[in-house]
């Protein structure tokens, strides 16, 4: 088992998301994260899907996705050849000024921003590779995470694949 990131260019129609996710459901594959957004061409959307699965499962699902009529392009993004980002928003408990300054120092070390602060909590915003965020989240658990939101990964290939450029 390994995490794969699949980048899809799809026609921006109602039902495309259901059709795409149904492909995974039918094969019993769990989607670990999913983002959908407009892209460089009007009428098309980009979906970034992260799944856990074997190489052969990925290959099967990739071909089945290509078969969907409204899917224009499917790219399996390799980690080492892609810029991968996840956005995390979290509310961390700070019991006193000591805790607050520690949290803020750590946030700074990770390049995170303080989006809001109250007397007993701070809201931290961090955009990073998912693994870095995982580490930061682990650190913040020591202080107490009240709420955690992550957008799920979005990713862009460093070479030409994935987009409409040739």
């Amino acid at each position: 088992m390994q995490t794969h990131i699949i980048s899809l260019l799809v026609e921006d129609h109602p039902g495309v998301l259901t059709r795409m996710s149904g492909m995974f459901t039918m094969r019993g594959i769990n989607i670990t994260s999913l983002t959908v957004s407009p892209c460089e061409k009007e009428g098309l959307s980009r979906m970034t899907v992260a799944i856990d699965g074997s190489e052969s499962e990925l290959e099967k699902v990739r071909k089945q996705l290509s078969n969907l009529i409204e899917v224009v392009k499917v790219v399996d993004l390799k980690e080492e050849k892609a810029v991968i980002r996840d956005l995390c928003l979290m509310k961390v408990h700070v019991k006193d000024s000591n805790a607050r300054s520690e949290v803020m120092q750590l946030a700074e070390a990770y390049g995170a921003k303080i989006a809001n602060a109250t007397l007993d909590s701070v809201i931290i915003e961090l955009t990073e590779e998912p693994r870095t965020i995982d580490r930061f989240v682990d650190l913040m658990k020591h202080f107490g995470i009240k709420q955690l939101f992550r957008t799920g990964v979005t990713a862009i290939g460093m070479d030409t694949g994935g987009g409409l450029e040739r």
Partner: protein
Amino acid sequence: MTREKLKGAEIVVEELKNEGVEVAFGIPGGVLLDLYDVLYKDDVIRHILMRHEQCAAHAADGYARVLGRPGVCIATSGPGATNLVTGLANANMDSSPVVALTGQVPTAAIGSNAFQEASTFTITMPITKHNFLVTRTEDLPKVIHNAFYIANTGRKGVVLVDLPKDVLATRVDVNLHPKETFTGYKPKIKPNPVQIKKTAEVLANAERPLILAGGGVISANATEELRHLAEFLGAPVVTTLMGKGAIPENHPFSLGMAGMHGRIYANRAISECDALLSVGTRFSDRLTGWQLDQFAPEATLIHVDIDAAEINKNLQVDIPLVGDAKLALEEILKWLEKKRTTSPGSVWVQRIREMHSACEECIGDVRREGASISDMLIKEISKVLDDDVIVTTEVGQCQMFAAHYYITKKPRTFISSGGLGTMGFGFPAAIGAKVAAPDKRVVDLAGDGSFLMTCHDLATCVENDIPVVVCIFHNCYLGMVRQWQELFFEKRYSNTGLGTIPDFVRLAEAFGAYGERVEKPEELKDALQNAFESGKPAVLDMIVGQEDKVLPMIPPGGSIVGMIGTERCKPI
């Protein structure tokens, strides 16, 4: 010139006609009143009123398989659409081009649990190649055009168009017959020359080449090319259930159907070959058995398929070749002819001759020792019916008797539910087949269990003068399940006995059809003659042994070399 505004329903019918539609099988309903009103006034499209939507889908499917172009079925919203589901899933599994039109509640009411509302769009998504929910009348021309284009290109399949009532009733000003399609839909037709060369080289150097033909060969109209290649290579041909008819089964190179209920010789050839050219098949478990390492263990595996997603899905192959079967076979043959190669070793040719004659002996001899009444009947049917007769089957023992013993000589004359295994398919499919080819005789080989699932459409046959002949293997059991209970569950016949009800002859007569009982195999020929001569839809009630079995077979979990019940096969 000012254009007259067209109603959505008129646009639909105009576009159907533009796609060459001549027949539709369906049942109207509240939300389809506008569409049926246009059909009422139209004199091009013949609408056949079915008695159940499932039958409408099966009939469209049968029609499509006979003609090789899309069949059309129509159902209303809610229960009409959900009744279609089985038939659509069946057609899609067997890559049969069907376009389904369903009514839907008005767009403003969608999602409100309105009367006769079901989310047809989401329900049918996993069982269609593609589907549409039309929300604007202006979109109808493009949607209908694409429905036919998608259904009938690439790997063929089912496309459903869901039509809300207001979309059909609204008048708009539109351009008809658009040509635009989807950016992402480009069916790959032309095979890669590098893969062609690799394939040809393997075949040229093989000592024991074998061709495995699936339904894709028939659907690509590639049967001539297949026969030429087989003859040129000296390679025997085995088929899947869907591939029956890809080569005349009396051809000296034909070894018949392989797989779970296939012929032992066909399975043997798969085990012995050193190069296997598989064309238009998806290596279903009913073909390969459950031990994949035992499937063609000595062979270089070549897989020709129009659907790239089938490559390495069920079986890892050595040479994939994505593209249209007809083009691929032509190219392979061209390459081989250029580099005239040695034909396969005479040992293999001799071996094939042996296997073929063993086949002929076992399959052809009607009264072979130990033959069951079912065996005798199906062999008799195969002898009596001429080459042009279209045979459809239900699912279960009757289907496997037919697959094993019925000698199919032409493509598109053997029509069966392969992937989904839908009981009740054969009879409505026969209706579709007869409508597609009114000059040909159409026979449904049925079981009593299967026929009872869709027999109400005898009314459709009688009312519309569609004289198909149903031959029922009447064993008072759900025979195939009973056979498994006998062989693998120590004869505990749980819920497979059907009793003796109904009297099928009187049932036929009640519908105004012809009915006759066949108590002994020797009565069959005359009964068939009577049925055809009656000019009516007919039901022949053939009484068979209650414990007749389809043998040999690969037992569950078994491999292609591990068939049981081979006692009556000639050892080779």
